[in-house]
């Protein structure tokens, strides 16, 4: 039999054999309170919050540790269960400091949530609480530990034992003096450490970067893809559109992993997670033109006029484009249509993000760009791309280009100096300031991934969608809209009406993407066709 029927709180639902009662309930929209259970970790069964009554079984059973049987009848909401769960919650809170006002978990705390759901009692605990050793103690670059808030669910312990296999988190001592900690004098030493903040259901483990920058109830979320490497881990961008003053002007305050069983399961590496500041820091907001006597800011439309003039003026074969693997598939496709196909521009992918030896056997890739695979496919790049910095000059052709468009990359300074000395017009299209932007004749500000919708193709060929989280800063525009503006000015019949339409065009024209649609990318992305 490959399907069972179980009845939970009177709802009869289908269940997969071997699955737990808790997972079955959650999959069917029935919420059974739980702390220690996490779908990405082995079952521990220690918190006892998910106690349920199973007809025919005298004692209450934990839903996380009970496998469904055909015809099983389960109650998670009757008086007996409610009473037991309330007891458990009361037990978890007696030694908890209940210091919610000064706790950064406030608003996303399992104790707060379940107190509302199943608690609602007046405290009967008239005793002194157990005092634990560590309050607000850093246990690594990113993680802060408050032992008193811990409910000993052991999720962090299981994470470092089973997922990273680095074993840093442990529970020392016994009974009500048991406490989570790292080895005395030690610290977290894995590259996924902040996941234990995500999975901590209470305020025991908080993020040192995020702490007290913003109350979580001000945050909004947008589903996205981590731009930190070629893995394409699924994330939610947490941003605070209303109160950027809470965080020194930053709108985006954190990345959190979103589950995707094909890519990152439930996890995210620290490098990717803490790459978010580039969204708000050192951004290029307005176009700039370098002229005799200095640099002047100008409207984007005027910058595009100027760039269109330069493209028109540049002799055939003497314009080159350094594309970026940070661009979305849609942006790359627009560049391909205009620059490569219509204008015959030489297109190269410079190698700016490969950190050889940096990969691990889990999520982290050597390639630090989210869309190298997409760039390769869309530009038909072969063995020679990406082009290493020392081969970039040779890659640009026998003669140095008259006009060089650089997308995001910071050129090696000798090459940059040589180009400028040779009279090459340097145009920088990019999101963040760097030395090449500072030296460019013309700067065209682009939006970052978080300011537009689009897709990336990860290193395995999985195409994944991301959504707009925050609006563009200043005059910054998606690259496809820049190409649209240029096409209009150059009288080329190309239309890029928006990311959804471009994606449809792309799937119609590019074999590898044929058959994909935004629908097929939901929720976990879809693989390209392998020719």
């Amino acid at each position, binding site marked *: 039999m490959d399907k069972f029927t179980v009845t939970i709180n009177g709802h009869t639902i289908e269940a997969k054999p071997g699955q737990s009662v808790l997972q079955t309930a959650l999959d069917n929209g029935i919420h059974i309170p739980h702390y220690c259970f996490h779908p990405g970790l082995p079952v521990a069964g*220690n918190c006892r919050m998910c106690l349920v009554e199973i007809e025919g079984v005298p*004692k209450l059973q934990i839903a996380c540790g009970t496998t469904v049987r055909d015809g099983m009848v389960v109650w998670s909401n009757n008086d007996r269960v409610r009473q037991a769960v309330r*007891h458990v919650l009361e*037990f978890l809170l007696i030694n908890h400091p209940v210091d919610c006002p000064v706790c950064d978990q406030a608003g996303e705390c399992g104790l707060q949530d379940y107190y509302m759901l199943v608690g609602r009692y007046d405290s*009967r605990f008239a*005793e002194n609480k157990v005092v634990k050793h560590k309050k607000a103690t850093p246990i690594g670059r990113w993680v802060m530990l408050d032992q008193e808030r811990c409910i*000993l669910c052991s999720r962090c312990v299981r994470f470092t034992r089973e997922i990273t296999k680095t074993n840093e988190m442990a529970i020392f001592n016994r009974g*009500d003096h048991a406490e989570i900690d790292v080895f005395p004098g030690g610290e977290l030493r894995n590259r996924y450490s902040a996941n234990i903040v995500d999975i901590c259901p209470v305020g025991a483990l908080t993020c040192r970067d995020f702490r007290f920058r913003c109350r979580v109830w001000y945050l909004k979320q947008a589903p996205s893809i981590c731009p930190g490497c070629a893995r394409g881990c699924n994330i939610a961008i947490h941003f605070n559109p209303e109160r950027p003053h809470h965080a020194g002007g930053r709108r985006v305050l954190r990345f959190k992993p979103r589950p995707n069983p094909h890519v990152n399961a439930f996890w995210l590496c620290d490098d990717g997670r803490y790459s978010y500041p580039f969204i708000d820091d050192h951004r290029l907001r307005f176009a700039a033109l370098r002229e005799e006597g200095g640099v002047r800011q100008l409207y984007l439309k005027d910058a595009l006029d100027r760039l269109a003039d330069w493209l028109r003026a540049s002799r055939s074969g003497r314009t080159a484009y350094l594309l970026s693997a940070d661009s979305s598939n849609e942006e790359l496709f627009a560049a391909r249509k205009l620059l490569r196909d219509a204008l015959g521009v030489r297109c190269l992918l410079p190698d700016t993000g490969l950190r050889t030896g940096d990969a691990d056997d889990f999520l982290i890739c050597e390639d630090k760009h989210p869309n190298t695979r997409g760039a390769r496919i869309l530009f038909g790049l072969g063995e020679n791309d990406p082009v290493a910095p020392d081969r970039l000059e040779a890659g640009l052709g026998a003669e140095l280009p008259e006009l060089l468009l650089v997308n995001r990359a910071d050129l090696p300074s000798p090459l940059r100096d040589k180009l400028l000395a040779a009279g090459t017009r340097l145009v920088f299209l990019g999101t963040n300031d760097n030395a090449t932007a500072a030296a460019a004749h013309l700067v065209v500000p682009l939006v970052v991934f978080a300011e537009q919708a689009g897709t990336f193709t990860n290193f395995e060929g999985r195409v994944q969608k991301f959504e707009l989280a925050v609006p563009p800063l200043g005059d910054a525009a998606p690259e496809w809209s820049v190409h649209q503006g240029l096409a209009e000015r150059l009288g080329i019949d190309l239309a890029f009406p928006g990311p959804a339409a471009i994606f449809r065009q792309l799937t119609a024209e590019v074999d590898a993407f044929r058959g994909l649609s935004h629908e097929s990318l939901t929720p976990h992305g879809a693989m390209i066709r392998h020719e």
Partner: protein
Amino acid sequence: MSERILSKRFDLADSHTIGVYEATGGYATARRVLQELTPAQVTDEVKKSNLRGRGGAGFPTGLKWSFIPKDTDRPVYLCVNADESEPGTFKDRHIMEKDPHLLLEGIIISAFAIGCHQAYIYIRGEYIPQIRRLRAAIQEAYGRGCLGRRVFGSGFDLEVAVYTGAGAYICGEETALLESLEGKKGYPRLKPPFPAVVGLYGCPTIINNVETLANVPAILEKGGDWYAAVGAHRSGGTRLFGVSGHVIRPGVYERPMGYSLKQLIFEDAGGILDGRALKAVIPGGSSVPVLRADEIDIALDFESVATAGSMLGSAGVIVMHDGTCMVRALQRLIHFYKDESCGQCSPCREGTGWLLKIINRIIRGDGRPEDVAVMRDVAEGILGNTICPLGDAAAMPVISFVTKFRDEFEHYIRHKRSAVPAPVK
């Protein structure tokens, strides 16, 4: 004189030596079993005997053995639970001290029955003299071919090793014992899977109490039917009753299942100390509900004690006379369970600590009228909701004490002192 199965050598000089053991018929049964019987025949005999686990839970031993998967390609382990730590319980200590070869013979026969070639004796770390004695006995047994390669010249191999705990009552819980034996904290495991399927190092494992195994040679010698007839109801054989507390002659008394509790206290153990009156009895180790003096006219077998609202448990009988303050007595027990809670699951970890704080406060003279009700409610919040039976073990005494001696608790709270004049200290 009643039948003596377990204690028949206790009074002999040098009863712990293999010389005395063999001279009194020891190892003859194991030798015969290995030569003449099949493992299945041994298990059948034990099933017939109605031998039930002597650790406290009373699970039928033969049935437990039959849960080992047939034709498993993994090693099968026998773990001997010698982690005797239940307050009021000291019977296994007597066996290991005075007749360790009886235990070893039981191990040999039982290991043969379940197809085990490596047995571990998990013994509590405090039993230091007993550890020494067991090790010496094992060495003697190896020297005489009773253990090791080709036991008694048969085709059966068996290694036996002693593994020492380090002070944790919880390791008497069979899955915590396995964790400890694997080198970890004594955290009980979730069941299922049961140890007979996934036990030590993930292999099929049987965990049996010392006294349980010490019964096996006699069952195989005289037959399961004989053994069952010694007992009462579905509880076969005799038990080593450990009597302690306010009696004139504390000690271990081997009596048949179904023996009279009154007789045990007033005849065998000599009655109540200092000529005082009996007040209460805990009949099966500190975890089981307490009985008032008027509730002790019962037979000591699993079924009868259950009918009286308590449990036979480990058969550790703790006797309290009328000079005992039940508030202080319960405080000792709560202190124990709080100290010994492993801390893994919430109700036991937090609940035992809470209970101790309440009762300490009552004893300090800061009790509140609602405390008795809160204690009862906290205990009920623990009862049945934990991973392992330690939660129940902590809750049951609380519930029974505050119910049966409610007046004493209320008196203590109201008057800030014991209801008992000049209570024992």
